[in-house]
């Protein structure tokens, strides 16, 4: 058994820095490259793409990422674990096999493809068998939106990834695995942690939580002393140096920018936190109040003392459904009295929407530069050089939302003065695909692992 395993984060979301994966494999020795591509809304976008083209539905950035790290994979044995498969892990694998053909390294990549998280084909079966899939937040039964469901995926844990690694995969592609399992699974595989080693599994999950958002743990988006975080242009993404006993250190490659200390790691630990006593995953319930941090070197934080409790018998299910339509538009009002003009414009616009009989579920007006993000907490309203009026509407009737987009821009000539910033033209109407969180019994989800060469 190895005494040290290094897992490097190379992507914190679909849209993250394209340079990061290559920099992680070239900056020093690592064992695993972990790439997290999936957010709650990503699955529904991928499902729409797959409907248009059955060869799509995965994170296409991933193919470029693998191409950029191919020498390290082939020559140095670095392994990759990614949830880039989205709603079509098999198509993602096919794209990688095509890449290996094109680059003359066919057979050098052993792909582990994890499926079984996709519940869409079984949805009616599940409902008929009494699995309500009610909304965890509102309690409503899924039947309310059943005919508008686009995708339904169970969050699956580390086990199928561990199986893929045990069967010799050096690139593991999953669909809706939990973000944290992508880091915990290789530790479990290398150190032989059992399915009931709750404290160690929890440590692996917390290591995953720390690096799943990429550089957000190594000085990116860090509030404390932000102005002194060095060389963010050259930021080093975080790496976990893990030990068999469940302790680990967070660090980054030498010569990179950013910062890893107790404050940067703590900020990432509290990100998107719910009840810290019970961070629920398919593998274990981790206790964030057990985490201890100490600086063990420059840009190096030791994490220890973590405890966990047995996993629950449920899995979370992420369901996406067509909800309604929205459009958001902006205009910029300029000194003098920029805010007063923007407020007058909002009043004119709302009166016109009213006059036309347009109704919406919501209209949201914000004044960017004044109170868009902090609302009434923003305090004094000085005479700003410019204020961006930002108005959004949402409703079930696409035509009404469309008509709203034609009401905003005329304001440039027929509303309050000193207005600009309309070059982008009418706002676009977007269909909202909303997210429906639910729980399902673990037993009904059967993850599958295929190994392809």
């Amino acid at each position, binding site marked *: 058994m190895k005494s040290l395993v290094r897992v490097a984060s190379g992507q914190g979301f679909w849209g993250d820095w394209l340079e990061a994966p290559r920099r992680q494999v070239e900056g020093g020795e690592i064992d695993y490259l972990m790439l997290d591509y999936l957010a*709650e809304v990503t699955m529904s976008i991928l499902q729409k793409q797959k409907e248009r083209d059955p060869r799509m539905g995965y994170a296409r950035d991933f193919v470029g990422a693998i191409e950029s790290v191919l020498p390290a994979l082939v020559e140095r044995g670095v392994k990759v674990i990614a949830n880039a498969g989205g709603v079509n892990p098999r198509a993602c694998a096919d794209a990688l096999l095509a890449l290996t053909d094109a680059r003359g390294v066919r057979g050098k990549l052993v792909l582990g493809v994890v499926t079984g998280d996709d519940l869409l084909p079984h949805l009616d079966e599940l409902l008929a068998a009494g699995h309500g899939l009610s909304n965890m*937040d509102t309690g409503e039964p899924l039947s309310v939106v059943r005919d508008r469901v686009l995708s339904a995926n169970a969050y699956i844990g580390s086990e199928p990834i561990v199986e893929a690694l045990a069967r010799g995969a050096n690139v593991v592609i999953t669909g809706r695995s939990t973000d944290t399992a992508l880091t915990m699974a290789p530790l479990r595989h290398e150190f032989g942690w059992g399915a009931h080693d709750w404290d160690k599994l929890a440590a692996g999950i917390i290591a995953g939580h720390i690096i799943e958002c990429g550089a957000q743990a190594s000085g990116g988006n860090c509030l404390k002393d932000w102005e002194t975080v060095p060389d963010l242009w050259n930021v080093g993404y975080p790496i976990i140096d893990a030990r068999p006993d469940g302790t680990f250190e967070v660090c980054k490659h030498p010569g990179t920018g950013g910062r890893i200390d107790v404050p940067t790691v*703590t*900020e*990432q630990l*509290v*990100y998107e*936190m719910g009840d*810290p006593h019970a961070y629920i995953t398919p593998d274990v319930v981790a206790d964030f109040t057990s985490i201890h941090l100490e600086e063990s070197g420059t840009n190096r934080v030791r994490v220890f003392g973590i405890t966990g409790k047995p996993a629950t018998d449920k899995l979370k299910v992420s369901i996406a459904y067509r909800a309604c339509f929205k459009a958001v538009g902006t205009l910029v009002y300029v000194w003098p009295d920029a805010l007063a003009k923007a407020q007058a414009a909002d009043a004119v616009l709302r009166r016109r929407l009213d006059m036309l009989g347009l109704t919406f579920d919501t209209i949201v007006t914000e004044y960017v530069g004044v109170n868009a993000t902090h*609302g009434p907490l923003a305090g004094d309203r000085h005479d700003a050089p410019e204020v961006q009026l930002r108005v959004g509407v949402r409703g079930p009737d696409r035509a009404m939302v469309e008509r709203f987009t034609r009401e905003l821009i005329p304001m440039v000539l027929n509303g309050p003065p000193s207005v600009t910033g309309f070059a982008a033209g009418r706002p676009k109407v977007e269909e909202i695909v909303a997210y429906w969180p639910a729980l399902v019994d673990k037993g009904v989800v059967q993850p599958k692992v295929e190994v392809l060469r």
Partner: protein
Amino acid sequence: MKVRLLDLAHARSGDKGDTANVGVIALRPEWYPLLTRELTVERVRAHFRGVISGDVERFELPNLRAINFLLHGALDGGGTLSLKTDAQGKVFSTAMLRMVLDIAADEVKALSLPVAS
């Protein structure tokens, strides 16, 4: 004496559906007990009145010298539904740090708290 929370703590926020979480972290370990005393659910609820529509939950993490707050009904439905600029609650962190605390002069002195000018 007036003390800005911004000078006592740093913070990060994120989203879960229509709920924003704000983790408030003491800048110095010796300031953590004061934060746990001052940052009550009632205080935070009053601070965010008119900003959030739901209730506030509070969890202490003494191991990290942090307090985690859940602000329900903060994000106009959250996720893709939200029409807000900050649909994912990314800057509720600094909205929290706008809070100003009233601290007795001897405690300000004993804990070397930075006083708002």
